[in-house]
C-alpha cells in the first residue's frame, strides 16, 4: 500500500522528459493496473477509451482498468486512459482540507442567542444604595456577575458562517481528491452501472469479493439515465450511495472508502474540470449567457 502511494508520488514527480533514470523504474512507477506486455499469450484487453482533451507534452495519461458490475469476476474488461491533470495532479492535501472544511461550514447557521444584561427582564433599578449598606456596590440585579443576570459575551443572534472559496480552488480540490483516490487504489472505473439483479445483497457480495471496503460511492452521469437495478439496490443500502456526476464533492469522496465512476462520467468530469485551466476570468457570472458557454 505504501509502495503504491510512493509509486504514485514518484509517477507525478517524474515528468516525461526525464533522463538518466532507468526506464525499468519508470515502468514500475505506473499504477499496478498496467496491462500484460505484448509478448504474453493472453488475449489483449481492448483500450476502451483514450483521452479526448489534449494532454500536455511533458506528461502521459494515467491508465486504469475498466471493470464491470455484471459479474463477480469481471474485473478487467478493458483499459482506459485518464487525463494526468485531473487524475495525476499534485497531491495538495491542504487544498483538500480547505475544501472539506468549507463544505462543512459554509452552510452553517448557528441559531444560538443569549440575552445580555439589557435584554434580561428587570434590573433597571439600583438594588441598594451605593454607600452605607455594607454590601458590594451594584447597579442592577441583571449584570453578568449576578446569578440570573445576562451573559456578557455570549452568542448574539443567528450567525452565518457563509464564505466561498475561489472557484479554481474548489475545482482543484476535486482534481486532488480524484488523484488521491486513484493513487490509493480506491478508484474503480466501470463501463456502466448495470446489474443483473436489483438485490442489495448482490452489491454487498460484489464489494466484499473485490475488497472495495465498507462504503462505496457510485457516480453515474445523469439522474434520469440511471439503471433501475442499481437505483433499487443502493436505495436499500446505507453505505452504498449513488449520485449523479454533478453531485460529486470532496466530502463524499473522502467519506466513502471507494469511488466507482462510469466511463461517460470520467469524460464529463475531465471536460468540466479541465475547462477551468484555460478560461478567462468571468466578466459577469457564468450563469448568464456567454458566446461558447455552456
Amino acid at each position, binding site marked *: 500500500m505504501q509502495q503504491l502511494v510512493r509509486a504514485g508520488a514518484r509517477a507525478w514527480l517524474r*515528468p516525461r522528459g*526525464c533522463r*538518466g533514470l532507468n526506464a525499468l523504474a519508470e515502468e514500475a512507477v505506473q499504477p499496478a493496473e498496467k496491462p500484460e506486455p505484448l509478448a504474453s499469450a493472453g488475449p489483449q484487453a481492448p483500450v476502451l477509451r483514450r483521452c479526448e482533451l489534449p494532454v500536455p*507534452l511533458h506528461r502521459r495519461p494515467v491508465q486504469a482498468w475498466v471493470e464491470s458490475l455484471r459479474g463477480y469476476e469481471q474485473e478487467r474488461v478493458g483499459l482506459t486512459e485518464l487525463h494526468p491533470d485531473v487524475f495525476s495532479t499534485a497531491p495538495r492535501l491542504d487544498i483538500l482540507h480547505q475544501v472539506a472544511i468549507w463544505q462543512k461550514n459554509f452552510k452553517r447557521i448557528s441559531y444560538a442567542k443569549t440575552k445580555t444584561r439589557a435584554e434580561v427582564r428587570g434590573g433597571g433599578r439600583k438594588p441598594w444604595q451605593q454607600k452605607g449598606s455594607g454590601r458590594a456596590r451594584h447597579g442592577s440585579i441583571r449584570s453578568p456577575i449576578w446569578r440570573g443576570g445576562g451573559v456578557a459575551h455570549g452568542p448574539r443572534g443567528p450567525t452565518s458562517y457563509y464564505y466561498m472559496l475561489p472557484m479554481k480552488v474548489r475545482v482543484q480540490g476535486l482534481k486532488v481528491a480524484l488523484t488521491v483516490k486513484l493513487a490509493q487504489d480506491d478508484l474503480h472505473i466501470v463501463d456502466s452501472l448495470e446489474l443483473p439483479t436489483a438485490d442489495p445483497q448482490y452489491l454487498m457480495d460484489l464489494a466484499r469479493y473485490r475488497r472495495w471496503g465498507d462504503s462505496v460511492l457510485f457516480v453515474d452521469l445523469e439522474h434520469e439515465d440511471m439503471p433501475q437495478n442499481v437505483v433499487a439496490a443502493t436505495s436499500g443500502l446505507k453505505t452504498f450511495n449513488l449520485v449523479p456526476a454533478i453531485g460529486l464533492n470532496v466530502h463524499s469522496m473522502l467519506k466513502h472508502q471507494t469511488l466507482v465512476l462510469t466511463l461517460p462520467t470520467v469524460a464529463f468530469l475531465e471536460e468540466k474540470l479541465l475547462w477551468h485551466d484555460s478560461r478567462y476570468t*468571468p466578466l459577469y457570472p457564468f450563469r448568464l449567457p*456567454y458566446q461558447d458557454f455552456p
Partner: protein
Amino acid sequence: MAATMFRYVLRGWSIGVPPGCGLRRLSQTQGTSDYPRFLESVDEYRFVERLLPPTSIPKPPKHEHYPTPCGWQPPRDPPPNLPYFVRRSRMHNIPVYKDITHGNRQMTVIRKVEGDIWVSGWIGQGPILTSGMKGQEPL
C-alpha cells in the same frame, strides 16, 4: 345624491357588458376593426450573440518570426530533455513574477514548476533554477 349618481351610471352601462364596450363601439364606426398586428422574430438575436464574449482562451496564432515584436516566444516543441518542466500560464506566458515584502525584500517567484528541481547530481547547491543555470545541463 349618491342614489342619483348610481342610477346615472347604470343608465349609461347596461348590466353584463364589460366597461369600455361603449368606447369600442365608437371606434368601430370610424372604419378600422382590428388591433394592429405584430410579428415575433428571433432572428435579430444574432446582433446580441455577436456581442457576447467568449470564455475559453484561444491558442496564440502562428507567426513567421520569433520572438514576436512584443518579445513573446512559443514553448519549445518537443519540450527540452530536463528533469523539471515549467508550464506556461493560461495566457501562454512565462510564469516568473516579482514579489516584494517588508519594503526591501525583493523576490522572484517561479510558479508552475513540475518535476525534480532538486537535482541529485548537483551537490551542495540549491534548486537548479536558482543558480542561474536555467536550461543548461547539470554537471
